[in-house]
C-alpha cells in the first residue's frame, strides 16, 4: 500500500514547481522640452538717416539681420507650438518696429515650424512662427530662424528725436 501511495504522489510532488517564463520591466520617460534662445547675444541698433536737404523725409530705416532664434522642442503626440513676439518697455511713438523670420536654416532636424508674415510689434504677443513640433535647430548664429528688424514711420507728427531702448520678448508656447 505504501508502495502504491508513493508512486501516486511522486509525480504530483515533482510537478509542483517550475516556471516557464519570467518578466522584468523597462521604461524611459522623454519629457516635454521647450527651449528658445536668441543668438548672438547683445542688442540691435536701428536708426533713420537724417535728410540732407530741408523739406525731405527722413531716410529709410536701417535693417538688422544679425539675430537668430534657436529652439529645441519636444512635444507630446498631437501637440504643436508657436513662437510669439512682443515689445517690452516703451517704444518711441510714431515709429513701428518690424520683424520677420526667415525659414529655418542650418543644422538640426524635426518639425521646426513655419514663419508667418512680417509683424509690426506691439506690447501684445503676436505669432511669428507656428507649427513647431518635435525638433531642434542647432545652436549659434547660423542656425535656426534668421530675424530681420527694421523701423517704420507710422505718424510723422509724433516723432521725437532721441535714443530709445526697449526689448523684444520671444516666447515658445503650446498652441
Amino acid at each position, binding site marked *: 500500500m505504501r508502495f502504491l501511495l508513493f*508512486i501516486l504522489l511522486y509525480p504530483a510532488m515533482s510537478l509542483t514547481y517550475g516556471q516557464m517564463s519570467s518578466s522584468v520591466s523597462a521604461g524611459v520617460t522623454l519629457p516635454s522640452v521647450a527651449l528658445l534662445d536668441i543668438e548672438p547675444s547683445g542688442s540691435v541698433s536701428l536708426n533713420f538717416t537724417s535728410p540732407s536737404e530741408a523739406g525731405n523725409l527722413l531716410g529709410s530705416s536701417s535693417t538688422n539681420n544679425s539675430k537668430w532664434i534657436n529652439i529645441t522642442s519636444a512635444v507630446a503626440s498631437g501637440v504643436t507650438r508657436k513662437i510669439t513676439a512682443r515689445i517690452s518697455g516703451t517704444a518711441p511713438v510714431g515709429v513701428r518696429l518690424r520683424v520677420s523670420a526667415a525659414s529655418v536654416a542650418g543644422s538640426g532636424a524635426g518639425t521646426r515650424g513655419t514663419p508667418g508674415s512680417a509683424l509690426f510689434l506691439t506690447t501684445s504677443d503676436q505669432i511669428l512662427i507656428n507649427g513647431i513640433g*518635435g525638433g531642434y535647430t542647432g545652436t*549659434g548664429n547660423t542656425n535656426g530662424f534668421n530675424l530681420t528688424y527694421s523701423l517704420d514711420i507710422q505718424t510723422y507728427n509724433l516723432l521725437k528725436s532721441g535714443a530709445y531702448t526697449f526689448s523684444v520678448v520671444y516666447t515658445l508656447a503650446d498652441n
Partner: protein
Amino acid sequence: MKLKPEILKWIILALILTFCNALRAQSISASGSWTPSVTAITEAGNNYASSTLESAANQTLISVSMPPQDLLFIISFANNYQVWVKRTDSGPNWNTAGLQLFVKRTGSGTGGGTSLLLVPSAINNGLTYQQITTSDVQFFDGYNFGNSTRSGIPIQYQITGISVLVPAATYSTTITYTLVDN
C-alpha cells in the same frame, strides 16, 4: 526467465522515478528592472547629447533550472534549453515612436552542474545586442546537468533612438524571458 514480484516491483519503481524526474518542470527566474533617465538638454538648439542609453552590465540576472535527465540518479545527460525574449509595451509603442530596445548577455553566471565524466554545463550565444521585439526571438541557449541551476546570468540593455523628435511620453514595457526545453 521470470522475475520475482518483489524485484519486479522495485524495477517498476526505479523506472517511474526516472520518468517522473524527467517530468519535473523547468524554471526560469529574472530579476532587475531598468528605468533610466535622460540627461536634460541645457541649451536651446541642441538635441539630447546621446541618442543611446545603456544599462549596467548586470542590470538583470537570470537563473535557469532544467529537469534532470538522468538514469536512476546516477548518470546525468545534458539537458538543453533555449531562452527566448520579447517585450510587451504598455502605453506608446516603442518602435512606432522611434525607440528600439536591445538586450545582450554579458556573462555566463555560475552553476549548471557537470556530467558524471566532469563535462561542465554550458551557455552559448546572446553576447551581442539584439533587438527585443513584440514577438519572441531566441536569445541564448545552453545545457545543464542534473538538478543544478545556472544562476546569475548577467543581462544588459540598450535603448536607441533617444531624440526630441520622439513624442514626449513615458515608454514602458515588460520584458519576458521564456525557457524552452530543447
